[in-house]
């Protein structure tokens, strides 16, 4: 692996780490498997890209992206809580609908941001080169978002959210409207995912309707890898595990892509298969260990 591909993996690890944090919030905290993210990541990208091409400040476009993502997540949660559609199916419905919506937003399958202002400009203005500025900036953003999430999960509202995922009957009998909390929580998760999508679009210079394919699997892989490395003890650890997991995951992919056995090497299109296998392995490893008495 070259120095450049290492920095590139760090950059991707941090920026997708914000998405992984969103997946942690639904998958682990709320126990709500949410596939909306495959649609809300490109949603954030397209909202931000269209806003920037319309002359809106790139920082403001990030907030707009997060807002759009929140709404997408809220739709999924309303389908689940109010209309009683199974959470998995509700999220697939929103995801499919978002594909059309994203193309409407961009008025086409993609929008180019080449030569447009991005959130990295201030750092580049300091004379930093792009491949150093991006990982630094994204690491800063990822750590900030993680800190905010950790703080939120310790507030009264955040604690109620944790309880909603853990034991709904308990928290209802403590006077909490679980429907509202699930809508808020899934919304918040997708706001983070869309925010991450907006940063990705600005960094790679384009938003694309298909850039979200496999987001949930990459997010899950990051969460699970992070948990394996850092453990799940405490909110602080679990939140940082998502970010660290994402970085490790991207490094592993960069490593796999740089390997060669004679004429054979992996291509980027093999990544979905590799990731799927990785997630299956990580999910079953604890059970296999138990079964065969290892470890």
């Amino acid at each position: 692996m070259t120095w450049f591909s290492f920095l590139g993996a760090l950059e991707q690890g941090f920026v997708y780490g914000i998405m992984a944090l969103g997946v942690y919030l639904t998958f682990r905290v709320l126990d709500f498997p949410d596939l909306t993210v495959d649609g809300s990541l490109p949603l954030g990208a397209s909202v931000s890209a269209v806003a920037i091409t319309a002359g809106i400040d790139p920082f403001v476009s990030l907030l707009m992206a997060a807002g759009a993502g929140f709404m997408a997540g809220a739709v999924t949660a309303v389908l689940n809580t109010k209309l009683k559609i199974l959470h998995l199916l509700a999220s697939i419905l929103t995801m499919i609908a978002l594909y059309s919506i994203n193309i409407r937003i961009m008025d086409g399958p993609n929008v180019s941001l080449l030569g447009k202002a991005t959130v990295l400009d201030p750092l580049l203005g300091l004379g930093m080169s792009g491949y150093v500025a991006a990982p630094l900036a994204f690491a800063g953003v990822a750590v900030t978002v993680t800190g905010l999430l950790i703080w939120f999960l310790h507030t009264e509202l955040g604690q109620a959210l944790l309880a909603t995922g853990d034991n709904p009957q308990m928290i209802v009998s403590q006077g909490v409207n679980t429907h509202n909390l699930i809508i808020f929580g899934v919304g918040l998760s997708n706001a983070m995912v869309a925010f991450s999508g907006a940063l990705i679009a600005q960094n790679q210079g384009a938003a694309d309707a298909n850039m979200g394919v496999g987001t949930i699997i990459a997010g899950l892989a990051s969460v699970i890898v992070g948990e394996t490395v850092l453990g799940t003890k405490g909110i602080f650890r679990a939140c940082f595990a998502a970010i660290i997991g994402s970085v490790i995951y991207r490094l592993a992919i960069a490593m796999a892509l740089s390997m060669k056995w004679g004429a054979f090497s992996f291509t980027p299109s093999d990544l979905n298969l590799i990731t799927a296998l990785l997630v299956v392995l990580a999910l079953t490893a604890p059970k296999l260990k138990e079964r065969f008495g290892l470890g």
Partner: protein
Amino acid sequence: MIAIEHLVKYFNRRGVNEVIALSGIDLTIERGEFITVIGSNGAGKSTLLNCLAGTFRHDEGRIVINGKDISPWPEYRRARFIGRVFQNPLTGTCASLTIEQNMALAFRRGARRGLSFGVKAAYRREFMERLAMLGLGLEHRLKNAVGLLSGGQRQALTMLMASLVQPELLLLDEHTAALDPKTARKILDLTRCIVSEEHLTTLMVTHNMKQALAFGSRLLMLHNGRVILDVKEDEKRSLTKDDLLSRFYDMQGEEVESDRMLLT
């Protein structure tokens, strides 16, 4: 005061398997009354509690607490008035949260939850004092996850949490049935202690006739969704297990009679 007026609850209403679980319960509960509820399986004891808590919506009748008809209120809204302890000792607490986090959640029962810290330093002192009451040493384990506690310890904690914010009505749904006899006795002692100290209006469902007689100031016997026995104070004190049993068999006898009438 809590008034239950002609409460009716069906399951699978208008379906092939329609069952009437409560067929017109009328009950007035005075403030501070401790009522034990007995009855055979399917008598409607748990359904009554669930209808009061709002877990199930009743089909007819009204529930009035302090002059307010709370019938249309969803479960989370009724929680402002109602404290609950469940039969399953795992239902009342969150396993992944710590003891103090669980208690802090219960401390805000019925109140708005905002963006201030869930567990405030000022709470800890009170939590420790309350926990010390249990005599289980939990006051030194505030930061332990509740999942590490035994069923009995969790039920004791739930009991404490249900009374942390004084409820208008405390619902105990066979809350000792899933515990071993020794732990069950401890939880019952704790129940007696908390209920009498805080003067809580309480409805305690039990399967155990001896418990029903030994506890509380009033006893209700349910059968087929109706109240068939309602005794208070002195009359309850003079009641024996045999009285309850004979009353119980009388009802079953009546049932056989009415079946016979139907068949002829």
